[in-house]
Each structure stands twice: as C-alpha cells, then as structure tokens.
C-alpha cells in the first residue's frame, strides 16, 4: 500500500461532513451508571479526539451516536437526525468500532461484497477500498487467518465503502504497525482537510496529538472538557501532560 496514495483517498474530492452532536446523554446498565452527562460536538473539517480513562463512557457514547445503544436521556444526532433515521447512513458516516466485524469463515472480499450489497453500493467499490486499505493481496483469504492489524484495515475498508463524509473511529490504531499508523493519520487528516468530519477515540495520546484539532475529554461518564487542542494543552508540553494533569486534579477534587 502506498501511504501517499491512501492519504489521497479523501483529498481527491470535496466533502460536506455532518455535524455530530450528543447532548445530555445519560445511560445506565442496570444499577451501574455508564453516562451521567455527556455532551459532544464534532464539526466538519475538523478531527475531534475523544479521550478519557478506561470505563469513562467513550465506547458507550459512540454506540449511542451510531444507534447501536439507546440513551436513557439526551439526544445523539448526525446533522440533527438520529443515526437510525438517516436514509443512507453508510453514505453519511463510516464507523470503525469493532475488530471482529467480519465473519471468520468469510474472505475479506466476501465480507465487503456483503456489506456493499447491504448499503446498495456497486461491486467496483469493493475493489477500490481493498486497494485503498492495502488488502488487495489478501482479499481471498478467510478473515479467521487475519492479524489484528489486517482486521483493523478491513474494518476501515468497511467504513469507507459508502464514501461517507464523516468517520467515527473507536481505537483505530489498535494492532496497526507503524506504517499503518502513519497511513491512518494521513487518511484522517486529508479526510478532514477535504471537509469531512472525524471523531476518533484513542488511548494513544501521543499519536492523537499529531492529528486532532479539537478534543472532548470524558471521565466517569461525564464531559470534563471540550474545545480546541491548543486551548486544552495550554502551557503543557504535550496532550499527555495536559490530560494527566486534568485527571489528577479531578481525582483530587473527587476525594
């Protein structure tokens, strides 16, 4: 895969990304509160980072945004419409949420052909995303034999099938090798530069710092901070330093 070619995936066209918005999200799993109040906005032309400790509610928020889970209270919309209300959701939003999104007995090509048919996309697009994600040479191999990195690329290929103008990615660098990480960074940057909306959740703050414009920080199920990356880091040398400082302050307040 040529990283430069892959990075040009989105830059070749002008995108009109959607605004992703969550307001006052509250969600409990039985007696356990998962979200107590999450507010989030991801705007077109920007890469928004979504960070927080384990169990802070990042994945739950993303699942509610994409219609996989229901909020007890609050709203989650894509350009003002809930995900399930979009007429062609995969053409608006590509989602990378789970490494195990493909049947292990299927080939990568078979999985993408299935997904293409489900969203009403022509078969040629399958070849394009295989090329874009560097999976062409392994497209006839069954998914059960894929490494974590290859599964991650397949999840990305699935997300790109509908030529969406927005992307939501939950820990997308998991399992990617260094060249894959650089490729993904370029893809997200060029995607946003072309007008697309990117919301990316990750624990790898050093990597995230290189690509995001805005930041939403959640802790214990509520939004602690949201705004631009430069406002967040302030006098700190890095995103990681600013993050640790804020979390420590918050824990000191809680105790």
């Amino acid at each position: 895969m040529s990283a430069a070619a892959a990075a040009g995936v989105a830059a070749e066209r002008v995108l009109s990304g959607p605004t992703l918005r969550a307001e006052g999200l509250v969600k409990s799993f039985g007696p356990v509160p998962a979200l107590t109040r999450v507010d989030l906005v991801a705007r077109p032309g920007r890469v928004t980072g979504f960070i927080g400790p384990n169990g802070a509610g990042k994945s739950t928020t993303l699942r509610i945004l994409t219609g996989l889970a229901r909020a007890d209270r609050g709203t989650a919309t894509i350009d003002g419409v809930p995900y399930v209300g979009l007429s062609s959701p995969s053409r608006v939003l590509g989602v990378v949420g789970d490494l195990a999104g493909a049947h292990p007995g299927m080939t990568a090509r078979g999985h993408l052909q299935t997904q293409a048919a489900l969203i009403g996309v022509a078969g040629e697009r399958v070849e394009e995303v295989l090329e874009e994600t560097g999976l062409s040479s392994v497209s006839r191999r069954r998914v059960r034999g894929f490494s974590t990195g290859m599964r991650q690329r397949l999840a990305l290929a699935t997300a790109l099938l509908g030529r969406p103008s927005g992307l939501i990615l939950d820990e997308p660098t998991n399992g990617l090798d260094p060249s894959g990480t650089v490729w993904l960074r370029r893809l997200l940057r060029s995607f946003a530069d072309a007008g697309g909306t990117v919301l990316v959740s990750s624990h790898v703050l050093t990597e995230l710092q290189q690509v995001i414009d805005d930041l939403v920080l959640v802790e214990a199920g509520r939004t602690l901070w949201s705004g631009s990356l430069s406002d967040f880091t302030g006098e700190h040398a890095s995103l990681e330093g600013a993050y640790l400082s804020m979390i420590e302050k918050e824990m000191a307040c809680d105790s």
Partner: protein
Amino acid sequence: MRQLKDAIRGEVVRLTRTRLPLWTLVAAVACGGLLTGLVALTGPENATPPMPGLDTVAGVSGVLSLLGVALFVPALIGTVAITGEYRHRTVATTFLAVPKRGRVLVAKLIAYGGLGLTYGVVLALSAVVGIYAGTSAHGIEAGLDPEAILGTTARYGGAAAIYMLLGVGIGAVARHQLLAIGITLGYFYFMENLMMILPGVNVVYPFLPGGATAALTGSTALLEMIAAEAGVSSPVAQAPLVGALLLLGYALATSALAAAVSLRRDVA
C-alpha cells in the same frame, strides 16, 4: 423500499459467501435420498419389527414419514441467521449498514426462506428417487402412485421451508446460538411429546407446531386419535393448508416477538 431490497440482496450475498448453502443441500440429500433410499433398499419388511413392504400403501407411507426427522435440520440452520451474527460479533456491522433492525430480520427471513425452499425441493425430489431406487432394486411396484408420492414429499418439502423460517424466528428471539438450538430441540423433542400425552393438555396439540406439521405433511393418525379421545374434531388435523398457515403463523409470531423485544436491545 430500496433499502429493503438492498438488505435482502445483502443477506443473499452473505449466504452465498459462506458454505452454508452447500451444507444445506448436502443435508437435504442425506435426509431425503439417503434416509429413504437406505430403508427402501434394505426393504421395510426386513426391519425389526418388520414393517409393511413398499408394494403397500402403508409401506410407502411409513418410509416417507421418516422425512419428519428432516424437518429439524432447516429449523436448526434457520437459527444461525441471527445467532451467528451475535456469536461472531458481526451484528454491529450489520446494524450499522441497516439500522432498522426489523428490516434486517425481514431480509433474513426472505433470504433463508429461499434457502428453505431449496432444501425442501431437494429433500422432496431426493426422497422420491430413494423410494423408486428401492422398488426398482426389489423389482416391485410402489404401493402408492407417483402423484401421491410426489404430493407427500412435496408437503414435507413445504414444511421444511417453513421450519427454516421458524428457526430464524427462534434464533432472533434467543440471540444466543446454543440457547436457540436448545429451545428448538427441547421443544420439538421433549415439550411437544410431553404435551401430546398429558391428559387435558393434549387437546391443544393439533394447534401446536407439531400438530400443524402433522396436518401439513398428512401424518394425522396420531392427531385423529388424540382428537377422538378428547371428544373434539380438529380442523387442523384434517386440512394441510390450515396446518401450513398455522406453522407460518408461528414463524411470523416468533419473528414479531424478536423485532419487538430482543432485537431492540443494545448491541455490545
């Protein structure tokens, strides 16, 4: 409407990209042709205890009634439609592509309905081949005329197709593969047999899936006995079409229950 067409096409493509259709056809031939063929070639009169020969109506009907065991295969295959998605954690990818979950279920019912019909046709035709292989080997005339044999096997084939849909519905309600298999086998092998022999409860048997199946396939001797014992005349025991509609009703009812309850739950 376009989204439903896409969803159906996607489910058909999904089926064709796995080995499930191949194994379904192998199972249909094994349950239809091999099972009836083996008994027919051995000769039912050589069984222990001996059964009427193939040159009698009872003999041919007896061998064809073995097709009853072939109905659980499509039911079990059908459960995979939804439970496989949860087991392999592909359900989130599917619901992201088609967020209206009822639409996913309808698409799967149609795709697996087609697979069930294919199973039924292959089951019926291979059973006919099995019967005539036996009569040819023994140099005898079948006790039933060809039309009656084909009609009986076709009814079993139709029942098999509906059982596939029933399996899809049960799988959608259960969501867990082992649970769905347990429900399917537990109900048909244990619960219905229990209900059939319990005094007072057995009057409803003709209206249960097992009774409806018997009506559809024409194996009504047991039902008629129950109905007579209970002092009721069961329309189900006499009308194959009513049996088919009743079975379809169970398939649709389980699917509707899944769409209203279990498929609405959060996806992890």
